[in-house]
């Protein structure tokens, strides 16, 4: 064995000696020389690569080439302490403290000395730039800067809708809209009644179904006619309370431009009357808007905005930290303390979307047909704990109803079911399920803010009282398809949109879950035009839905933006609008 080892070793050495310079005539350069040369070449290559990187640095410290100069504002720093309860496995509550900084402006933003250009990173860019075409968050953010709608919410989004591009009167049957004079489109066209009607007719025609989502709302009107150059009458088929809502989504489009370029062309070259006009759009890459000098209202303090497409939240955050962008949208809550500690400003806001978990959707479950079982499920949820820990305390805590106090018809007497596992067990026993039962649920994953985490926590808390929910998490497209086909499990979550002027209309989907009493209440509300009476009816309907425990209305979906300090005081609306301060005249 030793012999064979020695032979092998000798063989190996011989093989290695191939690499070793052999005895050579004096005129032949030894091999080591070549190796040294190659090694030197590698070193040169390495140095070259290093030099290349050095060149890439450009010697500069920052990569943002524009200068954002904003004179110092006078902010009041308030420290809000949000107590936060985290429920751990053994149900031992641990109190944490999250410190958020809220800035409030005291004086108007002074005019900047130089042009202000913003770089804003969004998780997605719109796929279409036709105003109001697609009801997505990103569409709302950008549409509301390029276009004006005929009705708008106030800056906080809490008040009723008010007319923007004109004024209106309503006699119970007909809405008479007086179009604002002197409003100019970005291409020079003037806003008038005939053009507005032409646009509505064009987009409501049915041939444009792919873009016409928002225009289907005009189906409540059976006649739209031009009374004079600045007046249009919209006649309702039957009196309804929510006649104003279509005007919120009616963005003014330039009629001649629409006729010339068609819908696809309009999306490529959008023209509105808003404070910003279109400059450039690279699909799924960037979108640039510039301040419109002919804007009829107050001019914004920002001169140019470029929206960048950065699908990953982690990338948006590092781009913000690297100074590549000024604002990063939809920051995960766990990143907020870190950004605050690094001297970034964090804007946290609310939205008109409530994370709702339907119980007994579609009347598919025998167990959940019993109201006591549904109530037991709500008593089993530590809503405040989930809101504080998983949702991070952002948005608004659900008050046992779809909307928050911002909404018309909000019922202050209705509250979230208290966390009471004992009562939950008692109700289950009373309903004939002392040992609980098994049921299936469907959870979205990544579709809504912290959706899967919340649904997982709910399943865990239901398990504590004996209800074993087998929670499935289908991929987003599959979830949507199952929703449409009414194939989701009896328990599922969904973000329900609502408006402060109409907080119960989406609740009418309870109708589909087979509650004729609620359906009747909702229909009565819709047909009641007297505000006082309608508000009372809404409160009654909300109280009824809560008592019936049709759903868990957990929290409103928060909007969290990280931004550089020193920017103009930009805020965001509950409908995902971007509010930019006006420049001083």
């Amino acid at each position, binding site marked *: 064995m030793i012999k064979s080892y020695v032979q092998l070793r000798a063989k190996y050495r011989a*093989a290695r000696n*191939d*690499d070793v310079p*052999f005895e050579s005539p004096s*005129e*032949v*350069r030894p*091999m080591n*020389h*070549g*190796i040294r*040369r*190659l*090694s030197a070449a*590698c070193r040169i*290559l390495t140095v070259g*690569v290093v030099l290349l990187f050095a060149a*890439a*640095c*450009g010697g500069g410290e920052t*990569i943002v080439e524009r200068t954002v100069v904003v004179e110092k504002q006078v902010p009041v720093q308030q420290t809000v302490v949000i107590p936060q309860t985290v429920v751990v496995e053994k149900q031992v509550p641990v109190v944490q403290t999250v410190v958020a900084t809220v800035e409030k402006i005291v004086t108007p933003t002074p005019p900047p000395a130089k042009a202000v250009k913003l770089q804003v*990173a969004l998780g997605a860019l719109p*796929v*279409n730039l036709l105003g109001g075409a697609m*009801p997505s968050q990103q569409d709302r953010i950008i549409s509301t800067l390029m276009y004006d709608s005929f009705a708008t919410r106030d800056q906080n989004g809490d008040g009723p809708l008010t007319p923007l591009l004109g004024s209106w009167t309503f006699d119970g049957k007909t809405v008479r809209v007086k179009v604002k004079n002197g409003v100019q489109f970005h291409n020079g066209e003037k806003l008038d009644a005939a053009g507005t009607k032409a646009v509505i007719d064009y987009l409501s025609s049915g041939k444009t*179904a*792919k*873009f016409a*989502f928002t225009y*289907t709302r005009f189906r409540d009107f059976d006649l739209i006619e031009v009374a004079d150059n600045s007046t249009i009458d919209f006649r309702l088929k039957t009196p309804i309370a929510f006649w104003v809502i279509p005007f919120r989504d009616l963005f003014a489009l330039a009629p001649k431009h629409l006729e010339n370029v068609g*819908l*696809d062309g309009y*999306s490529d070259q959008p023209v509105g009357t808003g404070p910003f006009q279109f400059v450039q759009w*690279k*699909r*799924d*890459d*960037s979108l640039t808007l510039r301040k419109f000098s002919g804007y009829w209202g107050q001019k914004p303090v920002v001169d140019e905005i470029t929206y*960048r*497409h*950065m*699908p*990953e939240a982690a*990338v948006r955050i*590092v*781009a913000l*930290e*690297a*100074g*590549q962008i000024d604002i990063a949208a939809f920051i995960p809550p766990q990143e907020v303390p870190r950004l605050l500690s690094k001297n970034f400003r964090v804007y946290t806001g609310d939205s008109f979307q409530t994370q709702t978990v339907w119980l007994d959707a579609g009347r598919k479950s025998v167990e959940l047909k019993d109201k006591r079982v549904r109530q037991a499920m709500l008593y089993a949820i530590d809503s405040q704990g989930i809101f504080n820990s998983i949702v991070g305390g952002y948005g608004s805590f659900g008050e046992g109803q779809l909307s928050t106090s911002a909404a018309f018809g909000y019922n202050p007497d209705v509250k979230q079911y208290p966390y009471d596992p004992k009562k939950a067990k008692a109700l289950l026993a009373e309903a004939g399920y002392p040992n609980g039962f098994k049921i299936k649920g469907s959870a979205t994953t990544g579709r809504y803010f912290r959706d899967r985490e919340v649904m997982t926590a709910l399943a865990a808390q239901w398990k504590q009282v004996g209800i074993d929910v087998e929670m499935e998490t289908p991929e*987003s*497209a599959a979830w*949507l*398809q199952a*929703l*449409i086909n009414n194939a989701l499990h009896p328990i599922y979550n969904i973000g329900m949109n609502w408006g402060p002027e109409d907080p119960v*209309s989406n609740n*009418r*989907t309870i109708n*589909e879950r087979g509650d004729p009493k609620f359906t009747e209440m909702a229909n009565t509300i819709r047909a009641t035009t007297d505000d006082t009476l309608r508000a009372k009816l809404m409160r009654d309907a909300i109280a009824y839905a809560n008592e019936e425990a049709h759903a868990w209305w957990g929290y409103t979906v928060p909007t969290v933006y990280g931004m550089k300090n020193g920017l103009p005081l930009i805020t965001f609306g509950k409908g995902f609008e971007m509010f930019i301060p006006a420049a001083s005249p």
Partner: protein
Amino acid sequence: MTSYIARRLLQGALVVVGVITIVFFLVRVSGDPATYFVSLDPDKTPADIQLELVEIRKSLGLDRPVIIQYFLFVQVAIRGDFGNSFRYHIPATRVVLERVPLSLKLGGAAAVIGVGVGLPLGIAAALKRGSMIDSVSTTIAVLGLTVPGFWLGIMLIILFAVKLHLLPAAGSESWRHLILPALTQSAGLMAVVARMGRSGMLEVLGQDYVRTARAKGLSERLVVFRHALRNSMISLITVVGSSIPHLVGTIVIVEVVFAWPGLGSLMMQSVFSRDYPVIMLGVLFMSVITVVVFIIVDVLYAIVDPRIRYR
């Protein structure tokens, strides 16, 4: 050679048609794209939604049997018309062609870095086997093969964009935006080239003709670059060639991490939104690139190794 290339092109075309056909039927199994276009207006009843779905399917041409859809697709695709993107409502050709140059730019840069750095590293490691440079090369190769692209990308962003402020974190506006994604994308290729370059070179260096070359007094530079390197190229070309489809496949991850608006990220979005026309055209591009690369590899064999002759 010309007839060989023509024959390979024909075979390649058949492969592309096969791929397109398989993908055509596969994406239709994934679900109904009409569900993306239906509006969930609270006023609508389930019956209204079902009616709308029927209308949408009709407008998208999805109401016919799948086999009929296939033949209709082939009929128009031959003319270069892949229909409108379901998501963007503009011709799919336009959507894809807007992205292809960016992906080629990224893929090309990654290939240049991968070969340009990997090959010298592999040669140096072979020539100095067992030395420090060999260890460094091996370490780099192992890391390049094992570190996931998304992690490497994030690490590079943190280092070069956040900490050092040298390069932008994401986007595609300038050549500076290209560096980090190209480095990330090239890591795997660089590793493979370094490893294969090393082993190929070692194998060749042990051959008789190398010994003969040395024996006749040639300089080491000539021995390495004229005799050894060229002969070790065949295995390397195979590896690089077969890495290109991998490069195309993994480009999705890099494009998403660096918000690089190329074909990869477009394909991912299109799969999620079941944008059939864009998926089909994207697959067509990717399969054509792969087939063409394989043909080029075959042709390169003949150029590098005169013994190989195609008939």
